């Protein structure tokens, strides 16, 4: 495998014919991996009406795009997508396949990996090529990090959450080859997609918020959580949470920040009533300024932030809300 020049692949993820940010992020990272290996970056793009997207992929660093542009590919279908990707992979033998940890990637990646009888690492926070030209897949675990490799089988497969890698600088001049994938794209009918329903999320979206407020078990109860919601509005912050808040039913799973939730990189992070568990903190590690409020001075959260307030959040948040209100009033009167 020393001289393996086979390509690095990214499976593109799109919604309404627009690439999700995770796709160019992965292409950018793949460019780096492929340069280290002395090989090429190729993308598999499936959809209907996505034929204008390859240029964006080339600008991000891809050299070749396998384009399946067909009404039968409009929506992700597990059997159809798996068949197409497995067919291509068996023919072109990529050494690495990366996918976003999106709802599609989280289902499609294991289906492809199982068909190709190869390994798959979940929700990586970093990827490197080691001295043996093997992909090192880094995941957070047990308060530290672990490195996973797939030494023998190929391709090496991993999923990565949106926001882990930066968007690459686009080079609009870059061109590449488009290889179109021909149908027919059929399936046995054992799974039928009846409809895809999009539910608009409430509040400020976490991905783009400049300030993210996250809270956890310290909110105490639903009443306490309402104070947190109020604070997020007062700060115009995106509201995220930790696992306990989801388990208690205060917050939606979609707003969970962390390795198996959302990865975000806001300017400012304010963590309230949470213990700084690694699962959560890796999702916010990219924030510029980090502030935590926790009633336990010994809480691990304080070793991971820039500013700390030791106080019970149930008592502190109402006072903070009042001070914010006073500040706003002063601003208006000036």
């Amino acid at each position, binding site marked *: 495998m020393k001289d393996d020049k086979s390509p690095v692949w990214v499976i593109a993820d799109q919604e309404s014919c627009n690439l999700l940010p995770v796709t160019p992020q992965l292409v950018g990272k793949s460019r780096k991996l492929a340069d280290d290996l002395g090989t090429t970056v190729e993308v598999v793009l499936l959809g209907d009406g996505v034929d204008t997207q390859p240029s964006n992929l080339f600008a991000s660093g891809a050299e070749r795009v396998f384009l399946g542009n067909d009404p039968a590919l409009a929506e992700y279908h597990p*059997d159809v997508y798996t068949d197409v990707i497995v067919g291509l992979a068996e023919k072109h033998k990529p050494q690495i396949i990366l996918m976003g940890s999106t709802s599609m990637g989280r*289902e499609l990646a*294991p289906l492809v990996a199982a068909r190709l009888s190869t390994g798959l690492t*979940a929700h990586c926070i970093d990827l490197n090529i080691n001295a043996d030209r093997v992909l090192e897949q880094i995941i957070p675990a047990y*308060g530290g990090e672990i490195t996973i490799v797939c030494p023998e089988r190929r391709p090496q497969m991993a999923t990565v959450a949106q926001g882990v890698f930066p968007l690459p600088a686009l080079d609009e001049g870059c061109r590449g080859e488009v290889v179109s994938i021909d149908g027919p794209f059929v399936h046995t009918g054992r799974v039928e997609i009846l409809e895809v329903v999009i539910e608009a999320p409430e509040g400020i979206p976490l991905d783009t918020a400049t300030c993210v407020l996250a809270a956890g078990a310290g909110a105490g109860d639903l009443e306490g959580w309402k104070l947190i919601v109020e604070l997020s509005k007062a700060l115009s912050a995106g509201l995220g949470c930790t696992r306990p808040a989801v388990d208690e039913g205060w917050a939606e799973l979609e707003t969970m920040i962390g390795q198996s939730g959302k990865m975000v990189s806001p300017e400012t992070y304010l963590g309230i009533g949470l213990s700084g568990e690694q699962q959560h903190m890796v999702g916010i590690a990219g924030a510029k300024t980090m502030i935590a409020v926790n009633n336990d001075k010994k809480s691990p959260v304080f*070793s991971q932030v820039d500013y700390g307030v030791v106080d019970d959040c149930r008592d502190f948040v109402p006072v903070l809300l009042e001070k914010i209100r006073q500040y706003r009033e002063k601003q208006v009167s000036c």
Partner: protein
Amino acid sequence: MLKIVVCVKAVPDPKAAGNIKIDPQTKTLLRGNVPMVLNPLDKNALEAALQIKTGMEVHITVLSMGPPEAASIVKECLALGADRGILLSDRGFGGADAFATAYTLAMGVQKNGDADVVFCGMASSDGATEWVGPEMATMLDMPVVTMVREIIPHADEAWEVKSALENGYRRMRVRLPAVFTVTRDLNSPRTLSFSGIIKARKKTITEWGLDDLGVSAERVGLKGSPTIVTEMRTVENTRKVEFIEGTREEKAEQLVQKLVEVGVL
């Protein structure tokens, strides 16, 4: 009669999982004294099966791969209402990654025979890969729907399910036999009851090893795992905390000031 298999896993109690740490010197795992419990999402998987059982004739088998001690969580599932328990236990199964785990469980499902439905939790709290369900489905040549948040079972062998997306859901129709991985939004799992524990006295747990499954040792456990962990390390914190001190009022005022400085207010 509908035959359902529910795959479950014994995991370190998530409430105490923070006690499991990496030894900075030896780079090995310090397991602490964390008790093993039923993986939380697997409770939702079992509950899904139990709820279907109230509407039609169903036989529920609980299938787990793990050390002999994992029999206790299988027993717990029997006490919750499952009819039969199978524990896949063998030294050869140890060290399995998601792929080898999926293969071993798939062989267990096959040996148990004629499953119409296989339920799994979407992920395990310790591994958090989400791969076992879909990989097992592939190995069993069954369709899979992941992140199921609603199920409408139909007697005509095609079920309607809703599967969660980041910003909505997919509604799909799935022909049985099929594998479903479930989210915690699907249901509220019942808790153990005294009468359930008593009823479980009459239920047995079957233990199957490598020979019982009739699989090659090369395909299970560490040997059958495509991926391996090569390194564990602790992570140094790069941030140094500055505490905001004073009375509650003063702390709040200073924090507002800080939020103004960084441009939030």
